[in-house]
């Protein structure tokens, strides 16, 4: 069949563009064990670095004696802060405007902190030497409770900035206080609260947890002294930012640094930051002139690299007697650990926590966040979330439930009564955001119908009766959640990381025979960018996705971008891809018009070709145009077919969803069982439904983990209690249910293809759904709120406190 005989539908299908459940191109190598992760990199004469870490949460480092370690055959060097100081590398800037010790400089501030870096011929020798480095510590009082940070007897953690009354985010009122961030109108909100007929209050804690990707963090640094070039491979969710930081820190010109993110074994926010291991590997390679690999183990990963959450959110929500919300007030105490290393856009020290009005039309709101230092690991990354959106969504979705209890109202009805209506978009929230689009009522009603919500409530009521009658020891919980995310950071006017605007980029080259390569500033960690970005482009330029290579992660070849986290790849780099594709098409149109001997305006685009208006038999395919662009002289047009786009999004995107979780709880053992989980996501235009569904399954499972047991817990001495996968909960296939997925499609009005991003929605919406189910199970017995994680003993404790065991 010739190209002319194919129908438009056939030609569209052949592109495997938008809306196609295209199989992933990445999978060939991954299923055959041929992925290339950082620990797979092997170079001649490569050395291995390993850390001496602090056993104490707070201590002075009196001395470090590395003589015994240096005596081990095969040990090349032991670096300490003293060695890094002449290079000004013993401290490094954090993403949050603070600074962080690379190696302990006089004291240690959390258990697992990097104290010395041993460089040896292999990892076995390095580990032996680590054991032989003698560090003399003097223990100091430990601060683990952020609410005790400003008490008179609290130890001062950060002596380096003890006297600084001004931090990166404004005034500091105490040496252990980092910042206060305020949004909204405090006095007006408090006035609403004072006069409202109904006010519900609750302290909502979102516990400390950790992204814990299957692959830990690591890097290989290779300083080529002959050519003066440093190459750094590593687990970087933002390779270009790492390059810029590496240049600023090391003094090596940026063009002489090549940063490569190879395949990454999951990130979930853990691999956004710059870690001491990266810096030490670079220094060690510069010092030794040999490549140096650093790969952390799982315990190091859990105890020293970036944690997530740890927000104590005190809330007040005001409403009329019949449930119309009048105002929202929130004060958050944010435990940031020993250094403020939160990965947030510079102007947002609490990320986008001010999306905490959620899906609701709340006329007045106020938010304050106090950042506090404690003797815990630094971090505060967005674990499968866009900068504290998960905390915000959890907060509002708990507060709605708490309000429903206070009003003695059905929580689904309360939500529907307060949703921002479809006709209110674009909607300006009381805390300053412009929600681009949404249709919450449609999604909500679809969800309630899908699970037979009325029937579930009747069943639940019967179960409560049976329980009270002694017929069962199980309770049923119905967890509702309607979340609104804010992703796709972000507009350069208000979003930057270390000063770099949060645009993203795509560069496309069409080859003479009509295939193409696209390079982006983002980096996939499992999201399938090589598959989906080719689909965006296929629909834009009419070349089959199968004929488009997508490359990311090599700063020598990829255009500058801010990387992949916060569900920003599709909203920002995806937009850049579409825009670059449109530039290709614009040039191609001139070439096609020339080839067809008509004016530019006399042809129109149709799937994969330009067609002369009114003469459908006269056309030039993109493939033909591509060939011509390299082989013919086109007057007034440069040869070749390439384009680049740096896309600065005009706004964030606002994916949303309606989740309903049904759980059965054994009151006596505290065991919980997920009976049903329904997830409706609206991520705007759907690029690859198969991948979207996979993202939802994965995100929900991470939410399940967090809600039901996953935490980074410390004892009163600051010892990490959950430092291995024995205690840090990751559900297996056995604990994980099958999920029902569903969707509505409300395109973003400002995104070139209407897409909004989906990877993080299920974590943002999933956690409240699971937690609300547990809380809801006990509503009939007087429970208002119980904290996560809802592991067996805490559920048992809730039941016990309610007198259900007597």
């Amino acid at each position, binding site marked *: 069949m010739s190209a002319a005989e194919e129908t438009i539908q056939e030609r569209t299908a052949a592109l495997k563009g938008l809306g196609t459940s295209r199989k992933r191109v990445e999978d060939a190598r991954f299923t055959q064990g041929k992925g290339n992760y950082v620990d797979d990199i092997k170079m001649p004469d490569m050395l291995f670095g390993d850390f001496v870490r602090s056993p104490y949460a707070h201590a002075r480092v009196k001395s470090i004696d590395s003589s015994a370690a240096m005596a081990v055959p095969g040990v090349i060097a032991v670096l300490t802060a003293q060695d890094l100081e002449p290079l000004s590398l013993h401290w490094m800037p954090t993403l949050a405007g603070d600074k962080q010790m690379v190696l302990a400089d006089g004291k240690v501030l959390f258990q697992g902190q990097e104290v010395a870096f041993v460089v040896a011929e292999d990892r076995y020798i390095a580990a032996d030497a680590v054991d032989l480095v003698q560090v003399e510590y003097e223990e100091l009082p430990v601060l683990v409770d952020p609410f005790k940070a400003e008490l008179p007897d609290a130890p001062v953690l950060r002596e380096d900035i003890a006297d600084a009354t001004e931090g990166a985010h404004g005034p500091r009122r105490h040496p252990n206080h980092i910042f206060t961030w305020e949004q909204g109108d405090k006095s007006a909100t408090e006035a609403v609260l004072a006069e409202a007929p109904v006010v519900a209050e609750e302290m909502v804690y979102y516990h400390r947890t950790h992204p814990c990707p299957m692959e830990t963090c690591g890097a290989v640094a290779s300083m080529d002294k002959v050519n003066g070039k440093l190459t750094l491979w590593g687990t970087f969710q933002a390779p270009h930012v790492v390059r810029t930081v590496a240049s600023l820190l090391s003094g090596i010109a940026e063009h002489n640094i090549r940063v490569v993110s190879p*395949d*990454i074994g999951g990130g979930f926010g853990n691999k956004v930051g710059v870690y001491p291991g990266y810096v030490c590997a670079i220094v060690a390679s510069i010092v030794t002139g040999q490549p140096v690999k650093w790969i952390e183990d799982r315990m190091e990963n859990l105890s020293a690299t970036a944690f997530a959450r740890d927000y104590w959110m005190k809330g007040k929500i005001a409403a009329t007697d019949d449930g119309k919300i009048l105002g929202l007030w929130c004060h958050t105490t944010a435990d940031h650990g020993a250094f403020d290393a939160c990965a947030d856009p510079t102007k947002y020290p609490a990320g986008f926590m001010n999306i905490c009005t959620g899906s609701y039309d709340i006329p007045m709101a106020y938010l304050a966040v106090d950042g506090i230092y404690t003797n815990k690991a630094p971090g505060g990354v967005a674990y499968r979330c866009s900068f504290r959106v998960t905390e915000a969504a959890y907060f509002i979705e708990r507060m709605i439930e708490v309000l429903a209890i206070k009003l003695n109202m059905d929580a689904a009805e309360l939500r529907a009564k307060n949703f921002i209506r479809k006709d209110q978009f674009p909607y300006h929230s009381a805390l300053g955001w412009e929600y681009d689009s949404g249709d919450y009522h449609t999604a909500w009603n679809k969800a309630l119908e899908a699970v037979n919500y009325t029937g579930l409530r009747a069943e639940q009521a019967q179960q409560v009766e049976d329980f009270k009658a002694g017929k069962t020891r199980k309770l049923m919980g119905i967890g509702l959640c309607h979340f609104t995310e804010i992703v796709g950071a972000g507009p350069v006017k208000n979003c930057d990381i270390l000063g770099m605007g949060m645009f993203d980029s795509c560069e496309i080259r069409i080859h003479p025979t009509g295939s193409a390569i696209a390079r982006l500033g983002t980096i996939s960690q499992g999201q399938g960018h090589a598959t989906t970005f080719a689909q965006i482009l296929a629909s834009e330029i009419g070349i089959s996705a199968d004929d488009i290579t997508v490359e990311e992660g090599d700063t020598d070849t990829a255009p500058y971008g801010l990387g992949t986290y916060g569900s920003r790849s599709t909203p920002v780099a995806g937009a850049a891809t579409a825009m670059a594709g449109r530039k290709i098409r614009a040039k191609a149109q001139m070439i096609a018009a020339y080839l067809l001997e008509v004016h530019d305006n006399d042809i129109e685009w149709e799937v994969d070709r330009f067609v002369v208006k009114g003469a459908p038999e006269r056309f030039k395919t993109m493939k033909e145009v591509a060939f011509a662009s390299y082989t013919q002289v086109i007057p007034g047009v440069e040869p070749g077919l390439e384009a680049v786009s740096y896309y600065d999004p005009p706004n964030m995107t606002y994916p949303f969803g309606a989740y309903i979780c049904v759980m059965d709880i054994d009151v006596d053992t505290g065991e919980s069982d997920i009976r049903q989980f329904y997830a409706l996501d609206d991520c705007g235009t759907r690029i690859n439904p198969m991948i979207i569904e996979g993202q939802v399954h994965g995100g929900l499972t991470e939410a399940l983990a967090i809600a039901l047991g996953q935490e980074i817990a410390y004892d009163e001495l600051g010892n990490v209690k959950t430092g291995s996968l024995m205690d840090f909960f990751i559900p297996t*296939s056995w604990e994980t249910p099958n999920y029902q997925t569903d969707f509505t499609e409300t395109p973003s009005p400002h995104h070139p293809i209407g897409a909004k991003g989906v990877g993080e929605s299920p974590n943002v919406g999933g956690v409240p759904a699971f937690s609300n189910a547990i809380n809801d199970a006990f509503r009939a017995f007087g429970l208002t709120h119980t904290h996560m994680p809802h592991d067996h003993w805490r559920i048992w404790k809730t039941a016990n406190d309610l007198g259900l065991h007597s």
Partner: protein
Amino acid sequence: MSKTTIKLNVNGQSVEAQAEPRELLIHVLREQLQITGPHIGCETSHCGACTVDIDGKSIKSCTLFAIQAQGSEITTIEGLGNPDKLHVLQEKFKEHHGLQCGYCTPGMITRAHRLLEENPNPTEEDVRFGIAGNLCRCTGYQNIVKAVMAAADELNQPEAVA
């Protein structure tokens, strides 16, 4: 410390490595034998990323000294199929989107292979129980289970027996 010659049959090839007794099989495979499919995820035998098949058993190679595997037959993900003829499980993982970042995938498929060898007609519950020693952070397992079930179905088709 002196090194010992470790003789193994890996993916049908006789190979040798020199290793101290304390060297873990995963390190010898990855660093000496260039078998980088099996990965290191937890190092405490909880995650299964390092799973290989040794003499017909699924084994976590981070919790076995290479010297203990002396003389054994080892199959890793690299030995299950090849680019010209993928193993059915490899095909089905692709088809059903049973992987995302790919880090757990080699261990997962290697384990699923042994599971199906032992139980060619598993129920969904059998599959979920049988892969409970392999953690995945990306997929929520739903599509992994689907892929394994689909592979079982295909392997049970008479024409699949080559």
